[in-house]
């Protein structure tokens, strides 16, 4: 076992600024780079969300502040075409350029090597390349906002033929499709690293069933990324060719002069990736929360093996349920019904997860730190998100609910609430280790209560109008008679949304204040038993561990009474 030491030699820390902070191969620096990128784009995505909510509260009225800044050409008013770009880019940015980097990019890079006792990722240079490839995709996204006709407008799902030149002419959509392709490449590079690192660089004694749940979540996510992002890549490539070189892979109907294309083909390829993608965004959140809850309840995670098993089961099942996004496309009914059954089966592991979390906090000695609050908040909102998924997984109810705001409410509760809160939980928890300083608990708690209350209200408002039948992606919902009476609830929801936006200000203050003026963090402020806290100073040195540790017990044994 001594030999593990040899394959991970201690490299001297680079001295030049560029090698240290910009083109760094240190997983901890790359983690921070991803965190910054993710937070900045979270702000961009959040701003776009505020514009969506404004439009639904005050359709066609001038947007305060933002209108003068970004919509000068239309006099500060959101037009229908601009609106399509706003929700499309909101969805894409939040998923691919905010939550993915902030949760998977940042905490995958930071936690995996530290938590399994490795000196760095398996391929540090590939890791660096992954980040800088990601930056290229960010540049493409920014460029898409600047071209004539504006950014992409076909929805984040970019269904053709709408996403071909027929529906969205101009360079904006093309650049965005290219950006998806490039960010896919970056994700694959990162994920190859995560997978290999966990497979091969675990410290002696760090068996799979001693890995922290966070690592499990991130690892399973990386596996899904490695396998399914390439399928998205293939779809994006073909769509790019349709847009730029006039092929007709996805075009049918009157516009397909040469015949042979198939719009449903894109949906298959997209959702073969897309459904695993939604679990890509939740698995790390489950893992992080599983750990947080156990740490702060001062108890080992209840039925750890069951949790690991459930997460693995979800990972496997995620590959075979994607058809539930396509129930009303006219797919073969037998296939549709099979997808319904498989989808409903996913709720079994989900229930096991919930039971394990609930049992973990039961009879604990709970410390309600900010990180713990975010963990508990995540369980709360994910309960809502998961349960609303059941209605969608069932074909007959989905006939009514498909493409309504119910779907939007469902996925905001799962992604925008659960993954979002888990990401913040992770930030509050690992900030001392990352930056060597403590965050303010007081501001953190204000941030938590604002977030969890208004998240519930905003996304609850989405479910509410969805139940009443409101379709998604409507520039002005009140054009429809059956939706006219929903103006008031939508306006109320919008105001909750603005409050949610304002509620993020304490976080921003806290983040910057702590970064520069926070109190120096101790090695193990939370008193937990995983390697990064017990063995590394805050922040850890360049090579993480002076001596690669030998692991003797599981991740949640800090308070082991023995």
């Amino acid at each position, binding site marked *: *076992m001594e*030999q*593990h030491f*040899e*394959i991970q*030699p201690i*490299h001297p820390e680079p001295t030049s600024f560029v090698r240290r902070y910009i083109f760094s191969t240190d997983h901890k620096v790359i983690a921070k780079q991803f965190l910054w990128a993710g937070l900045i784009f979270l702000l961009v995505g959040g701003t776009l969300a505020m514009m969506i909510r404004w439009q639904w509260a005050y359709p066609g009225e001038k947007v305060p502040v933002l209108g003068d800044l970004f919509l000068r050409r239309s006099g500060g008013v959101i037009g229908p075409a601009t609106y399509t770009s706003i929700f499309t880019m909101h969805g894409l940015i939040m998923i691919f350029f905010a939550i993915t980097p902030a949760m998977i990019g940042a905490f995958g890079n930071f936690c995996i090597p530290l938590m399994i006792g490795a000196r760095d990722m*398996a*391929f540090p240079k*590939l890791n660096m390349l992954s980040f800088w490839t990601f930056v290229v995709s960010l540049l493409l996204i920014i460029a898409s906002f600047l071209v004539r006709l504006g950014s992409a407008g076909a929805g984040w799902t970019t269904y053709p033929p709408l996403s071909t030149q027929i529906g969205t002419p101009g360079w904006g959509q093309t650049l965005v499709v290219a950006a998806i392709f490039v960010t896919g490449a970056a994700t*694959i590079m990162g*994920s*190859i*690293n995560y*997978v*290999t690192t966990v*497979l*091969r*660089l675990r410290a002696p004694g760090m068996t799979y069933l001693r890995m922290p749940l966070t690592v499990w979540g991130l690892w399973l996510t990386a596996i899904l990324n*490695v*396998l*399914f*992002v*390439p*399928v*998205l*890549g*293939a*779809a994006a*490539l*073909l769509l790019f*060719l349709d847009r730029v*070189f*006039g*092929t*007709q*892979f996805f075009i049918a109907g009157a516009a397909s002069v*040469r*015949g*042979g*294309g*198939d719009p449903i*083909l894109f949906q*298959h*390829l997209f959702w*073969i990736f897309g459904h695993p993608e939604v679990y890509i965004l939740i698995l790390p959140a489950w893992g992080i929360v599983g750990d947080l809850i156990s740490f702060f309840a001062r108890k080992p995670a209840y039925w750890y093996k069951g949790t690991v098993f459930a997460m693995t089961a979800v990972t496997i099942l995620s590959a075979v349920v994607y058809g539930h996004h396509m129930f009303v496309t006219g797919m073969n009914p037998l296939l549709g019904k099979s997808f319904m059954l498989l989808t409903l089966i996913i709720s079994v592991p989900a229930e096991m997860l919930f039971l394990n979390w609930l049992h973990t906090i039961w009879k604990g000695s709970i410390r309600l730190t900010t990180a713990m609050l975010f963990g508990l908040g995540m369980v709360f909102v994910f309960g809502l998100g998961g349960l609303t998924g059941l209605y969608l997984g069932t074909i007959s109810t989905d006939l009514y609910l498909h493409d309504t705001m119910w779907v939007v409410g469902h996925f905001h509760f799962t992604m925008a609430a659960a993954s979002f809160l888990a990401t913040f939980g992770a930030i509050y928890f690992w900030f001392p280790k990352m930056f060597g300083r403590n965050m303010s608990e007081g501001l953190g708690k204000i941030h938590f209560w604002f977030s969890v209350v208004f998240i519930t209200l905003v996304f609850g408002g989405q479910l509410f109008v969805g139940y009443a039948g409101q379709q998604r992606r409507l520039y002005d919902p009140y054009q429809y008679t059956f939706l006219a009476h929903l103006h008031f609830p939508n306006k109320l929801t919008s105001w909750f949304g603005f409050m949610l936006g304002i509620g993020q200000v304490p976080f921003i203050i806290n983040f910057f204040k702590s970064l520069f003026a926070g109190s120096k963090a101790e090695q193990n402020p939370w008193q937990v038993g995983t390697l990064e806290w017990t063995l590394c100073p805050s922040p850890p040195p360049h090579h993480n561990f002076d001596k690669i540790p030998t692991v003797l017990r599981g991740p949640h044994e800090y308070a082991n009474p023995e």
Partner: protein
Amino acid sequence: MSEHAAAAHAHPDFVTPADWPEDPQYGKATLGKLGMWIFLLSDALSFAGLLLAYGILRGGSTHWHNPGEPELGIPFTAGLTFLLICSSVTMVLGYAAAVENKRKQATLFLGLTALGGVLFLCGQAHEYHGLSQEGLHFGASAYASTFYVITSFHGFHVFTGVTYLTIITIATALGKFDNGNYNRIEVAGLFWHFVDLIWILVFTFVYLVPTQK
């Protein structure tokens, strides 16, 4: 601990596969090898995405060939297939020579492998030229478009492989992989064989599966 392992303390790149510690699940597979396999899985799924598109388009089409579009020439591509198989053999022979620490022989076989790749690309260019003269144009039909996309995506892999192998060949010639440090040759070999393996599938699905008359 062997003498190589001792050298590893001095230089990280000199851990030979023989000195790699045993892993309970993955045995002596090195980091590089595992990483390459994971990448290949990923890459296989990108080909799968394209082939799936091909299959669905073809399965859902009422007629696959537009009038006037030529059949794909099987005998010529069978030759290309044979060429890739040959280059796979030279690849393993080069690897074998490197394992046995025969630098010259290894360089020769690796060089031949890269040459095989170059010839393949030339063959493909020739094939494209011929087909486009016969009236098979990218974008003109699903048949033509899928054909060009899949084969050129594979061609791009061959090109990458040739570049990769050229670098490896030069490094071999310079003695970088002597004395049991052949891991990177094996990893490069994995990529090259994968390119061959994919071609076997592409050849079957795209060229051989007969069209419905």
